[in-house]
C-alpha cells in the first residue's frame, strides 16, 4: 500500500485515512465478500455493550433526501461474541479494529475498556457518547452534557491500557461542539471521531405514522455532511493539535479530501457501505487519485488545508 497514504490519529497509526464508521460495517466480515477489508485504514466495529442487546422494534429505517433515518438501538450480541468471534476473524484477515464501545452507564464504559485492554487485536477504543445517559430524566445522551461526556471518557481512559488510543465519538447536534470536544480532550481522549447520526424523524405520508418505530431516529448520509464538516472545521480551528476522524455522509474520495481539508486526519465511510458494499475500496481509490490530482504527495499534508487558505484568498 502506498506509503504516502499513511496517517496518524494520535498514537494510532493507519496505513491510509479511509476507515469504516461504527455500526455501518459490522466487524468487516460481510464487506469482506466485496473487497479486501485489510486494505482499509481500519474497521470500526459496531458499538458493543457488555451484554446482548435486542435493540428497537422494526421498522428501523426510512429513506430521506440524500440520507436515511435509522434506529437500531444498539442491537448486538455483547462483548463476549466480539472478543471470541469477530476480533479474531478480523485479525486473521489482517484487518485493524477500532472497537466502539457503548456503556449502559459510566461504570460499564470502564468495564468495557478494561476488558478490551486485555484483548488482542484492538487498535483503538472509540467511546460512543451518543448513548442515553441513565441519569438524565429527559432522555439526554452523554454527548448532550460536556461534564458527563468528560466523566465517561475519563473513566475509559483510566481503565484502558495506557498505550491503547482512546477516541471520543462526538454528536453533531450539540450547541457547542468545541466545548464538547474540549471536555473529552481534557478527560484524556487521544482523538475525536465526529459526527454521530443527528436526531431526526420522518412521517410516512401514506399512513401518517412515524416512518420508524418510536418516532425519532438517527439521520445519516450525504445530507448531513455539511454539518459534519462544519463540526470538524470548528474543532480543528480551536484544537489544532487534536487528531480527528471525520464522518457523516462520506460517499466518494472527494468527500474524504473535504473532511481532511477541514481538519480530519482520517475519514470514515458509514451509510455509503449500505448503498455500495464496495464503497470502502472505491473511496480509498478515488481519494488516492483526487489527492494526487491536487498535487499532494502525502495524505497527511492535506489535514487542515482549508484553514490555510481563505475563501478566494
Amino acid at each position, binding site marked *: 500500500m502506498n506509503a504516502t497514504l499513511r496517517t496518524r490519529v494520535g498514537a494510532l497509526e493507519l496505513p491510509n485515512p479511509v476507515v469504516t464508521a461504527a*455500526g*455501518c*460495517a*459490522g466487524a468487516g*466480515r*460481510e*464487506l*469482506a*465478500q*466485496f*473487497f*479486501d477489508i485489510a486494505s482499509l485504514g481500519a474497521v470500526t466495529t*459496531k458499538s458493543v455493550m457488555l*451484554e*446482548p*442487546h*435486542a*435493540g*428497537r*422494534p*422494526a*421498522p*428501523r*429505517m*426510512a*429513506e430521506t*433526501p*440524500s*440520507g*436515511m433515518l*435509522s434506529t*437500531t438501538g444498539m*442491537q*448486538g*450480541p*455483547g462483548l*463476549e*461474541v466480539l472478543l*471470541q*468471534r469477530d476480533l479474531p476473524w478480523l485479525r486473521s484477515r489482517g484487518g485493524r479494529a477500532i472497537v466502539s464501545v457503548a456503556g449502559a452507564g459510566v461504570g460499564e464504559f470502564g468495564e468495557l475498556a478494561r476488558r478490551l485492554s486485555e484483548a488482542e487485536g484492538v487498535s483503538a477504543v472509540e467511546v460512543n457518547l451518543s448513548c442515553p445517559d441513565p441519569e438524565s430524566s429527559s432522555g439526554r445522551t452523554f454527548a448532550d452534557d460536556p461534564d458527563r461526556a468528560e466523566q465517561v471518557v475519563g473513566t475509559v481512559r483510566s481503565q484502558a491500557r495506557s498505550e491503547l488510543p482512546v477516541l471520543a465519538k462526538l454528536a453533531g447536534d450539540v450547541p457547542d461542539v468545541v466545548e464538547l470536544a474540549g471536555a473529552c480532550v481534557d478527560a484524556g481522549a487521544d482523538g475525536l471521531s465526529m459526527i454521530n447520526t443527528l436526531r431526526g424523524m420522518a412521517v410516512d405520508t401514506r399512513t401518517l405514522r412515524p416512518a420508524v*418505530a418510536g418516532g425519532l431516529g438517527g439521520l445519516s*448520509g*450525504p445530507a448531513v455532511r455539511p454539518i459534519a464538516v462544519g463540526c470538524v472545521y470548528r474543532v480543528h480551528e480551536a484544537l489544532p493539535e487534536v487528531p480527528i476522524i471525520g464522518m457523516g455522509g462520506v460517499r466518494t474520495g472527494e468527500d474524504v479530501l473535504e473532511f481532511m481539508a477541514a481538519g480530519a486526519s482520517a475519514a470514515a465511510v458509514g*451509510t455509503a*457501505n*449500505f*448503498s*455500495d*458494499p*464496495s464503497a470502502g475500496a472505491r473511496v480509498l481509490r478515488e481519494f488516492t487519485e483526487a489527492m494526487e490530482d491536487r498535487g499532494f504527495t502525502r495524505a497527511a499534508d492535506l489535514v487542515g488545508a482549508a484553514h490555510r487558505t481563505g475563501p478566494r484568498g
Partner: protein
Amino acid sequence: MSDNGPVQIRCPVLNVRRVDAYVAITVVAPGIAERFRSGQFVSVGVGGDHSSTLLRRPFAVHDVKPDYGGTVEFLFSVKGTGTAWLAERRARDLLDLVGPLGRPFPLPRDPVNCVLVGGGSGAAPLFPLAQSLRRRGCRVDFVLGAASADGVLNAITARRLAETATFATDDGSFGTRGRVTDVLDKVVREGRSDAVYACGPMPMLRSVTAVAESHGLPVQVSVEETMACGTGICMTCVIPVVGGDGVTRMVRSCVDGPVLRGEQVRFDDVGSIPFDALGAPGWKGAGRRGVEQDRDIA
C-alpha cells in the same frame, strides 16, 4: 472475493417488459446468475449517482437464464420513487446490482409434494423454486392470490409448471373470491402436500403458517422487511425468530432470511421486540444460553 457470496456488478439491461400488473427487468449478470439459488434476491441501485435516493431496492429473482453468460430477471409493481425510476429503464442502460443475497429456499432431499403459495408480486421467487422442485421430481401445486386478476402473476406459467394451480382474488375477478388461505387447506389435502413454501405480505405468511401447522407440515416463508443494506451490516431488517434452542433472536431478514422457517417466526411480535428476546429486558431469566448459540449465526 468469495465464490458463493454475493457480487456487485454493473449490468446492462436486456429488456424491460410488462408481465401482468408488473414491470419485469432482465439484466445480463453472469456472476449473479451462476451463484443464484431460488429464494434469493438482488438489490438494485436507483436514481443514478446524483440521486437523492441513496438506498438500494431489494427484489426477488424471478428468473435466471443461461443466455449471454447468464441473465437475471426481477419484477415489481411501481410503488414509489425507486420503482418509478426503474420502470423507465430501457435496454442497454446499466443497473448496479448486488446479489444473490439472502438465504435460499431449502430444497427437500426426496421427491415430495410441495405447495407454493404466493401473494401479488410475492409470487415471483416461487417460479424458479417450482423449477428446482420439479427437477428433483417433486410434485408442485401453486396457490396464487392478489387483489384482482391483473395482480395474479404468471397464471399460465403456474398452470404449466404445476400439477394444479389455484387462484384467489380479493374482488373475485380471477379464481375464487377471497384469500389464498381460504383455498390452501383444500389444496394441501388434495395434493397430499409434504411441505409448504410461501411468499407474500406478512399477514398472509402468518395465515399460511397456521394452515401448514394445522397439517403438521414444515413451512418456509420468505419475509419482506425494510432493508437499508441487504448485506447484513446495518441491522435494520430484523424479525423476531425463535431458534432451535428456544431463544428468540432479532435476526436479520437479509442474511438469516428472507426465507425463514414459518413456525419459528414470531408473527405476533413482528414490529416489536418480544420481552424475552435475547438482550431484551425480559431475557435475563434465560441465562447465558443464547449467547453461546449466537456465535454460530452470522
